[in-house]
């Protein structure tokens, strides 16, 4: 059935294919357009470099008036990612605008890898290490990068 939400998701998919932003990719499941798999490649010059981090995006009929639920499947070590893989990112919560499409969501998450916000920690250990022991923080992140190649 074609609903505004589904039509919009088809457009998002076409846009992601025809004009893909660097370092991210995503596609709906073949049998369920409301469920997307995505990959974010760790940005260069960050501890996440070379990582291939997998996520799922779950949409419901309120999209694009409400954001999808976004979750990392790959294990992450990041100040703003919970142990469950859920993210603490303003545009996915109270700063959402329906003008954000899937490409914009994925690039925002990519830039979150670049610029963690240790002031609103979802992972207190990662936030503390990020502030106080950058070397150990990098080491822990590198572990997840290596895991991301296998998982």
């Amino acid at each position, binding site marked *: 059935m074609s609903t*505004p939400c589904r039509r919009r998701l088809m457009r998002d998919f076409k846009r992601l294919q025809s004009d893909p932003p660097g370092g991210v990719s995503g596609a709906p499941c073949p049998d369920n357009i409301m469920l997307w798999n995505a990959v974010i490649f760790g940005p260069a010059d960050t501890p996440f470099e070379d990582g291939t981090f997998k996520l799922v995006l779950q949409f419901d009929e309120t999209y694009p008036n409400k954001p999808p639920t976004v979750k990392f499947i790959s294990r992450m070590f990041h100040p703003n990612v919970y142990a469950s893989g859920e993210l603490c990112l303003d545009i996915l919560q*109270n*700063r*959402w*605008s*329906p003008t954000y499409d899937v490409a914009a969501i994925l690039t925002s998450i990519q830039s979150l890898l670049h610029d963690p916000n240790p002031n609103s920690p979802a992972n207190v250990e990662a936030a503390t290490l990020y502030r106080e022991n950058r070397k150990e923080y990098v080491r822990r992140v590198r572990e997840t990068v290596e895991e991301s190649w296998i998982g």
Partner: protein
Amino acid sequence: MTSEQQTTPTGKEASVDVSDEQILAFEQEVKDAEARERPLIGELEPLSALYSEYERGSPVFCEKIKALDREYQGFRRCRGDGNCFFRAFAFAWFESALSGDDTTLERIRQRLTATKQQLLDVGFDWVALEDFYDMTVELLEMVARQRGQTLTEAATLSNELRLGFVSEQGVYSNAAVVHLRMVASAYLRAHADDYLPFLELATSMDQYCAQHVEAFGRESEEIHIIALTKALRSIVNVVYLDGSTANDGRVSVHPFDGTENATDATPAITLLYRPGHYDILYNRTAA
């Protein structure tokens, strides 16, 4: 509350730590609850309907409502989902195109189509915005097609417009809300030097707009009204219904006039403001 929490024996200390996520979830729950019981745009109601809500409450409110009842024909409630200012504006603006003369319709159409260039001028990505613009224009054209009919049926036509606003879970009026938010944002970005000094907590206009203007469901403040009326060169009169006893307890009206010269003005829109919320008000003279 989950069933697990309900069956927990009392006496255990309750956690006082409330996470940001819980606060956000609670705010969302309040908005969702409002959404379930209030349509996006309501029927025209007499102000006496509002009076009964305050009858046992503040006498200041009651006196003010009585005064409003003498001056205004009625009001239309808008859902308090954080978008009420933009949705109320969109509805009242299109309704004035519906009941106004050809010049009014043409001016509103011209103001609306001019917004495309305003958005492009500040560098917005059109691909992300065109759907919302297109649907808003479509909504206005729906209004334009209905105008040929006899205007004695104005109330019926308004009702059809209302259906357009609430149908398909409000897809069209949500698009109009998104579009007008972007228009207000574009105006503020283009005039950042004039307005940034008034925004105490904002570090940059881009940040302020992304967080407070473009974000769907963020409540509007005066700056949103100023930006939108300037961008669309329209007039909004905000009638304040609050507990203030200043001004001898009379209702105060704040005009926001975004026109540059009065000769090409579109009909003024009147909104009823109660702290935190906007509804649409109707003068006695014009329906």
